């Protein structure tokens, strides 16, 4: 993991002191609510329905055991004993008192953490995939460049008041697990013919009110130009992005208005001025940062483990968990384990108690190298677990309510906090997720259905990424009551697609039955082991509509 030096530490502590002063001035009435708003947002502090919410940055989803214990202590000392992992790999605390925030931030600073730019119209947390550095299909470890970008974008004075928020993701594996097509800038890192690191730059993707997949603006960009190129994109956006309407202010609207060729030309012109200047990255800096991400001291393990094989054969529940929650690793004998935060009724998607955080921190040290990842699917990843330890870990995870064998299945629901907490939401998300999880509680059946992603957002801001769920559920407001619109066919990764709306929306009570009918339709039309998303692509929406809206069809016929 990246280790803070004196500069990094000075920055986070000075930031705490600065914000402590701003909070005091606000509470003394010297700063108006309007003046304080962007200051608190750029320190991760939102005003929710019931209380302030603090969003803590987890850069590219990587945490140490010590950092996880600090999050646990914040959950128990300043919140109601739990926190919520978000789709951008961060952690949110929902019940925060304003006057305690500087103390919380100081506690974070002590373990090299912060909440800087987790909100506001600025560059947000840089994200990558949860398996960076360990995935079997990885081309290059994206974390050094992610950290370099994190530093460059932190309190970059020219770009703190952009037209709207700005999200950057980077990935470098055969599968895109960082959803780079859905970001303001998506970066795909790959080796060129001579082994040099190159970047494919995608721009203008995003979900929200106007979901658009990003478009390629440049390919083959040598890594040394990463910062100057991103600077050029941001300068063009800062100058020309719309500011008259917050719903049309994201870079995707600018790219769409100009067309990708014209936008690319603007960026290219800007970039020519700065590309060979001091922003050009140096080999020294890359090596300095990359040295923090050298692989840990892996032991030489056999590719197969006899006890592991015996447990698999003897214990079908364990075998099921291994099949769904355990990922292949670069190093023989090791695996990466996904701990599901989606147990169903026991707790909402992404919510983790302080006690669970402490347990995860302990496991990361006992079974791995003290490192933890947060996946954008809101689950927790232990990146380096020997195969021989999987059975012991599984038993502990079950005891702590983190052992659900449902990764990638219908009940591995991605959901925003929704109307229970969020002031922006049109509708609740959590009760919908739990009602669906309750309806589909037969694990054998779920495993037979295979991979199905179901994403729920409580409003069009799309924090639950509903557009890219195979099944997407969007909360909408109709005359003051909560309704849910359903989309089918969305997908993330290399074959990213936006889901299509199947028809009029439903009441909360109807949703579980509608999902059941959609799944019933899939089962009826599915060929062999076909994936849900492939069946939808093959047969289209009509068969699903016929099942879901039978009465409406009779009327229209």
């Amino acid at each position: 993991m990246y280790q803070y030096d004196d500069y990094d530490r000075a920055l986070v502590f000075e930031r705490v002191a600065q914000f402590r002063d701003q909070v005091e001035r606000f509470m003394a009435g010297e700063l108006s609510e309007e003046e304080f708003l962007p200051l608190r947002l750029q320190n991760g502090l939102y005003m929710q329905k019931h209380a302030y919410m603090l969003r803590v940055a987890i850069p590219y989803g990587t945490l140490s055991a010590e950092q996880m214990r600090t999050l646990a202590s914040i959950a128990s000392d300043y919140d109601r004993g739990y926190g919520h992992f978000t789709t951008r790999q961060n952690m949110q605390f929902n019940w925060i008192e304003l006057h305690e925030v500087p103390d919380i931030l100081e506690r974070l600073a002590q373990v090299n953490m912060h909440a800087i730019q987790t909100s506001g119209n600025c560059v947000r947390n840089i994200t990558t995939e949860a398996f960076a550095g360990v995935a079997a299909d990885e081309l290059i470890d994206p974390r050094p460049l992610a950290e370099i970008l994190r530093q460059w974008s932190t309190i970059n004075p020219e770009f703190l008041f952009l037209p709207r928020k700005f999200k950057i993701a980077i990935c470098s594996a055969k599968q895109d697990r960082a959803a780079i097509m859905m970001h303001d800038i998506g970066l795909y890192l790959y080796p060129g013919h001579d082994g040099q690191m190159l970047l494919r730059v995608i721009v203008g993707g995003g979900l929200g009110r106007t979901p658009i997949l990003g478009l390629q603006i440049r390919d083959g960009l040598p890594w040394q130009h990463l910062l100057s190129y991103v600077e050029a994109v941001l300068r063009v956006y800062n100058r020309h992005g719309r500011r008259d309407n917050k719903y049309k202010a994201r870079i995707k609207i600018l790219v769409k208005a100009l067309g990708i060729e014209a936008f690319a030309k603007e960026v290219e012109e800007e970039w020519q001025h700065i590309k060979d200047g001091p922003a050009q990255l140096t080999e020294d800096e890359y090596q300095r940062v990359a040295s923090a991400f050298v692989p840990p001291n892996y032991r030489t393990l056999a590719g197969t483990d006899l006890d592991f094989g015996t447990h698999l054969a003897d214990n079908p529940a364990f075998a099921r968990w291994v099949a769904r929650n355990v990922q292949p690793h670069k190093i023989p004998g090791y695996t990466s384990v996904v701990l599901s935060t989606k147990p169903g009724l026991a707790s909402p998607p992404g919510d983790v108690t302080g006690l669970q955080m402490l347990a995860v921190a302990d496991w990361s040290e006992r079974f791995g190298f003290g490192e933890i990842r947060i996946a954008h699917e809101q689950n927790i990843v232990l990146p380096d677990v020997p195969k021989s330890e999987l059975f012991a870990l599984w038993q502990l995870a079950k005891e702590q309510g983190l052992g659900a064998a449902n990764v990638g299945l219908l009940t591995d629901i991605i959901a925003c906090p929704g109307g229970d907490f969020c002031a922006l939401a049109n509708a609740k998300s959590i009760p919908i997720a739990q009602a669906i999880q309750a309806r589909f509680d037969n694990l054998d059946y779920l495993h037979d259905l295979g991979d199905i992603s179901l994403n729920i957002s409580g409003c069009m801001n799309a924090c639950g990424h509903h557009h890219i769920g195979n099944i997407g559920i969007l909360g909408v407001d109709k005359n003051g009551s909560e309704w849910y619109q359903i989309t089918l066919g969305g997908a993330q990764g290399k074959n990213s697609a936006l889901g299509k709306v199947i028809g009029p929306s439903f009441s909360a009570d109807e949703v579980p039955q509608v999902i059941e009918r959609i799944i019933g339709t899939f089962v009826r039309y599915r060929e062999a082991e076909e994936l849900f998303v492939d069946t939808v692509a093959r047969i289209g929406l009509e068969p699903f509509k016929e099942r879901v809206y039978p009465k409406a069809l009779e009327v229209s016929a």
Partner: protein
Amino acid sequence: MNNLLRMEESGARIVLDDPWTLIRSPETADSTEMLILPLAHWLESPSRHAVWLGPDDGVESLLPWLASLPLIALDFPSFRDGRAYSQAYLLRSRFGWKGELRAIGDVLRDQLSHMRQCGFDSFAVREDKSAEDALKGLAGMSVLYGRSVIEPRPLFRRR
């Protein structure tokens, strides 16, 4: 009085004898004073007066006049509108403007250090705010990761 702060070699200070008068609407201008005129008005008859640009104005239009302009001001209609930061960057780093660059409009203590980093060297603090209090905002933080107008080398070249 313009509630003005200016960076000088000895450090930042409150300016009590600023000679400039900001003209938001040209009808009110008295041509005997030293005026800061809106860009469109100034371009009609380029003069000894200074000019101010709104965030929609292209800084490129000043290129022919940079050698003779006495002062350029950039307007923040709201402190949340960050376009003037990029305008300032271009004026200073690309077009080589060496004269006074003044922030006007919704100019507040908590953004002053960002403005300073982007090359502003004078700050007309919003009238209802104390210039003395705003002075505390100029220093900002000791660490700048990236680069800026006043520190063109990113931290990785200074580390």
